[in-house]
């Protein structure tokens, strides 16, 4: 590729990247500005004095340490159970032949279209009936199956050549064993990706967690962001500080998992 094209590619990508990360830059710098600097006119690029206090103050608004602990627990169990149910379902949809399979799948697919806001009251009642209100399981269980991920993993499973399945059958491998010993290892990246996506989702969820938790001991990070909006204004600087606190762990996790992500959603992860 000649240099002119190289230069074009790089410039385009750089501009794009800047657009992508600017809001983060703004949030993070915002978290060390004063309230008035954030809304400063003309635009304030960098605080006169770095307000680390913001973090201190923000962290005093709510017990973020407990929240962090809970968030990790919730995200962890949620992710692993989700992976389990997703693997099973995706396998059934991609490898098991039974009448009405595709119909069932599109029915499930259509549940993606339900605005979740409509469901939460009924679900709240269910959670109460299950006597799980204000417990961590209440934050975990309702999200331990996702047709979205099943769809994704099914796409990937479909890429695994059918002959592997036949071969394994001849080699005396049961469906169950085939799933765990052949498909799962080959879908490693896809699973890591789905895991990460799910982890992020459950990390950022806040409407439901707030609804079903009633005491600080059971609450999660994203709820912490609620504390900074009052009835007559918002503590921007604190909210941004808190926002940074919430996103930071994800950022780190992501940097670890990122190399799998591309392969994760890649079709034909293995050549047929």
């Amino acid at each position, binding site marked *: 590729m000649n240099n002119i094209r190289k230069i074009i590619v790089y410039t385009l990508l750089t501009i794009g990247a800047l657009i992508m990360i600017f809001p983060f830059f703004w949030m993070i710098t915002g978290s060390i500005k004063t309230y008035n600097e954030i809304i400063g006119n003309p635009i304030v690029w960098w605080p006169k004095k770095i307000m680390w206090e913001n973090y201190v103050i923000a962290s005093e608004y709510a017990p973020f340490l407990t929240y962090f602990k809970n968030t990790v627990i919730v995200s962890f169990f949620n992710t692993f159970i989700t992976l389990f149910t997703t693997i099973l379902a995706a396998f059934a949809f991609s490898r098991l032949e039974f009448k009405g399979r595709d119909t069932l799948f599109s029915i499930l697919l259509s549940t993606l279209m339900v605005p979740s806001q409509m469901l939460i009251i009924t679900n709240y009642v269910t959670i109460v009936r299950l006597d799980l209100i204000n417990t961590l399981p209440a934050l975990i269980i309702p999200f331990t199956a996702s047709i979205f991920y099943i769809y994704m993993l099914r796409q990937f499973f479909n890429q695994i050549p059918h002959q592997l399945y036949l071969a394994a*059958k*001849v080699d005396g*491998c049961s469906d169950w*064993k085939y799933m765990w*010993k052949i498909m799962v290892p080959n879908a*490693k990246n896809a699973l890591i990706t789905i895991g990460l996506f799910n982890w992020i989702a459950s990390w950022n969820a806040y409407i439901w967690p707030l609804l079903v938790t009633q005491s600080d001991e059971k609450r999660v990070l994203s709820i912490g962001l609620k504390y900074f909006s009052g009835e007559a204004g918002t503590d921007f600087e604190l909210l941004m500080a808190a926002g940074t606190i919430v996103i930071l762990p994800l950022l780190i996790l992501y940097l670890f998992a990122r190399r799998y992500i591309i392969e994760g959603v890649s079709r034909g992860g293995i050549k047929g």
Partner: protein
Amino acid sequence: MDIILKNLSKIFSNKSGEETVAVDKLDIKIPSGKLVGLLGPSGCGKSTTLYMIAGLHEPTEGRIFFGDEDVTEIPAEKRGIGLVFQNYALYPHMTVRQNIAFPLQNSKEFRQSFKADPVKVSEFKEKLTELEGNPEREKVQAEYLEYLEQFKDSRKKYKAEMEKIILETAKIVDIEELLNRKPSQLSGGQQQRVAIARALAKNPKVLLLDEPLSNLDARLRLQTREEIKKIQRRTGITTVFVTHDQEEAMSISDELVVLKDGVLQQVDAPQNMYNSPENAFVAQFLGNPPINTFDVEIKNKEIILNDYSLKNVNLENQTALLAVRPEAFKVVNDGIEVKVYKVEHIGRDKLIGFELNDQKVNALVDADLDLKVGDKVDIDIRSKGYYLFDKEGTRLM
């Protein structure tokens, strides 16, 4: 152990309900210990047949026997077969060693063979309780302990045995040095051999190969061909392999089965089949350069090719199809005069092309005849190497 297919049929029906007959009432006996080629043009149902033998497709009709045992209902893994796929289907995430070990790890029998048989154990226990206080008891006790002794540290033995088998099979297909590689690091030929090793590992009663050579380049194909033959000889396993390449099939199989549109055409040893094809299809399908065919008239016991009498036959008057092997032509002083339009040297033979009855004909003649393109020669047909078929293609003589 023979494989017997009785009236075996497979009908596929797609979503819209259309049915296609892939295999049609097959009756074949594959003799024990032989290497049998399942031959036919693509789509003739040979792979389907193989998969039914393997137990991956269930027949729509008919039964399959291994020896006297009806295996039609038995699932693939319990049939004691080894299957090699066209594209090898090696497990990408496993090393060669793990690939070979996989079938063994899945085999209950293999695992059981390292554990004390619970039945036997309970027998011993009963005996011991019966013999309470009886001097006999000591002896039984001893036997019992001895019996158990064999199964001490079974895990280690299991591992050792596994490794031993892996090495043996790897040796057979000589890939010992590849055991720790991943399939992606192997050449086509090597993958092929690994696939065979994996199939052999659990020492199957039957070895099935689906187009095993089609993914290899010409040289490798010849070589692997020989290897497969060697392996089969060495192991003596009844082997069925599917191919569409008649040359390949002829060269290695002890028995040939030719299929067309799911219908059995002929079963025989390659040479016999070549020498006496039962129908026009077989005649045309075998042999390279392919057999030459002419529409002829049989009038008062003579084969007439455009008012030239070729041979006398003891047949009623009718129109028929004459098939002549290239090598069945001979150059004579006084025969049908033809004009040579091509001359090729194939090894020691000489292939000449000429037009007869406005159709191109290939003939093999002895090399020392010196012929040039454009020469006119008289040719005739030898007494062997030609066949007559009726309009339906069934052999007349």
